[in-house]
């Protein structure tokens, strides 16, 4: 059986969640691997959400916000943008592959783009295989 990655998607309400809804109303089919959690703005996404998702068994985390300059709250996505490199360097220190966590801008009119991102990310994470985090946690627990 092929490995089916589980990916958690954090989407901002105004652009990206609406864009994902548009993919639906336009019947654009894409991989079923991303489970979406809605937040009001990408700036609400606390790095601990991403860590929590990886801890709980996600093989990947997708963060989507409005395009720079288009944020419903004027500049929330810039806050996410600045937080993101810090989060990525932390994840790299833990040995979590770069492609498991991804930040993308998806506007309310980009249903197709959302579908393309999900498909692409699913394939990349599938190629990486299961996340090492869960296995490491289990091994750690077993040692104790």
């Amino acid at each position, binding site marked *: 059986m092929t490995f089916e990655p589980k990916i958690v998607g954090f989407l901002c309400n105004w652009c990206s969640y609406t864009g994902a809804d548009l993919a639906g109303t336009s019947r654009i089919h894409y991989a079923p691997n991303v489970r979406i959690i809605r937040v009001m703005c990408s*700036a609400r996404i606390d790095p601990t959400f991403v860590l929590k*998702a990886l801890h709980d068994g996600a093989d990947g985390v997708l963060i989507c916000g409005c395009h720079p300059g288009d944020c419903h709250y004027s500049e929330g996505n810039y*806050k996410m943008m600045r937080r993101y490199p810090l989060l990525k360097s932390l994840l790299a220190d833990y040995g979590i592959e770069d492609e498991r966590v991804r930040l993308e801008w998806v506007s309310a009119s980009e249903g197709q783009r959302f579908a393309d991102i999900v498909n692409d990310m699913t394939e990349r994470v599938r190629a990486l295989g299961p996340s090492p985090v869960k296995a490491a946690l289990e091994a750690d627990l077993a040692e104790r």
Partner: protein
Amino acid sequence: MEDLKIGVFICNCGTNIAKVVDCDAIVDSVERLPYVTVARTYKYMCSDPGQDMIQADIEEHGLDRVVVAACSPRMHEPTFRKTLQKAGLNPYFLEMANIREQCSWVHDDPVAATEKAAALTAAAVLRVAHHEALERRSVDMCPNTLIMGGGIAGMSAALDLADAGNRVYLAERSDHLGGNVARADLTAPYLDSARDMLTERVTRVVEHPNIDVLLESQVRKVDGFVGNFQTTIRGKADDGAPTDSVYDVGSIIVCTGYKEFDASRITHYGYGKLPNVVTSFELEKMLRAGRVTTKEGRVPQYVAIIHCVGSRNLEFHAYCSRVCCMTALKYAHEVKSAVPGAYVSDIYIDMHAFGKGMEDFYRRSSEIKTLFLMYEKNDYPVIRKADATDDCDMLIEVNETLSGETIEMPADLVVLMVGMEAREDSEEVAHLVNISRDKDGWFIESHPKLDPVATTTDGVYIAGACQAPKDIPDSVAQARAAAARILARTARGKIEIDAVFAEVDEEKCSGCRMCNELCPYVAIEFDPEKRRSHVISALCKACGACVAACPSGAITARHFTDKQIFSEIEGVLA
């Protein structure tokens, strides 16, 4: 949380969800989750019987939390919140799982789709257990309205609002009212005068005691929220110097219209090089002046009209501009009346004669001996200068689809039916009032079918051709619908706003003031006495930027708390 009772209601949405997702299987999987007391499926959960069922279950089983797995919460969250309210539950005790737009409509494998739908529903169940009762805030609704754009849409909305006794500020960038309609001569299909129609509107608007017409004015800044916007408008003082004034309004209607496609972008047609290739608006100008001539002042014997200039074409705009086909037919009538004996040909892709009276108009236009030539999309007709021996100025080569032949049409005047496009300032306007634009630059409505007037920003409405190409009747209808929406709210005097906003726990706040700088709405104040920050809830728009940034974890986003989101993560991964 020991005594929680959660009801889970899974909608089939006819076959929209049920044809891909096995809804009964979701019932089985959620029944195993903690606190789930009842789980059911129904054909249409949003229907009256569906809502009645939820209400009855709340009452019968004493449910205190409800999950509805159905369409997007952007569609029916307000509906189901009301259902809870009717049953005496706090409306925020609802959580929706989006198993239609983000599941059944985008996946075709029933097993994977069902598994995902079950995970999304489980996440909603785990999340809803942490929901708190929230009270919506009631604030005063300012009855004034700002209308951006003094075209036919802006004026029509202004009159309805003003007639109801409300103050309207009608801000127009140019030095006159009327917008693009002021550039037209007659209108299709009844050939009535655009000028007469506008004169009636302009006169009433200008004379109306409740309408302030602000010409040569630009909206510079919009602060506040629905019911309570502060708008800064730059106009001209008596001495001509720019001056900013602040107007308090409760609602805003954006009616900024469109601009015409720049015909010189299609080099094939030689617009700007061949003197007698003109745009539809240039012909309107001649018609309004009552003199249709070539650049050289001759009366044209052959007039050719090319449709879809910039529209229905992948290189420029894929969409149809909606008004050009019938406007082109109108030219056949007008040209023939201005130049008796003229030959008029219409070179078109498809004749779009939608709407009332238009098909009859098409028939009448054929009866006055207009020649119709059909061309293939993207196979542009080619215009060239005629030879000295020809009795015309230009020749148009058309690969005519219906006959399958290449036809050469004589022309002394070529009219390009330029399409509509979003104005250059649409991006600026979108930012100003915080609304979205689609890929073509048109403003996006709240719902394409059920709410074509509102936007994602509460209190901001759109009307007319700034939303999409539109004719006069549709622009006026949308404008008056926007006015009606606003009047429904101003009539009540108060407005309920979302209970979702951020709160600072003063016990945990260290007074670092990091959040003060982060807030885009200046909604966080620092109390120098207590050395603590606090949120002014009326100004907070609940983005949550401060919540994620607070180093002390002292800020809570109501309805988007860490606990709620963490349990949702657990749910989708369970």
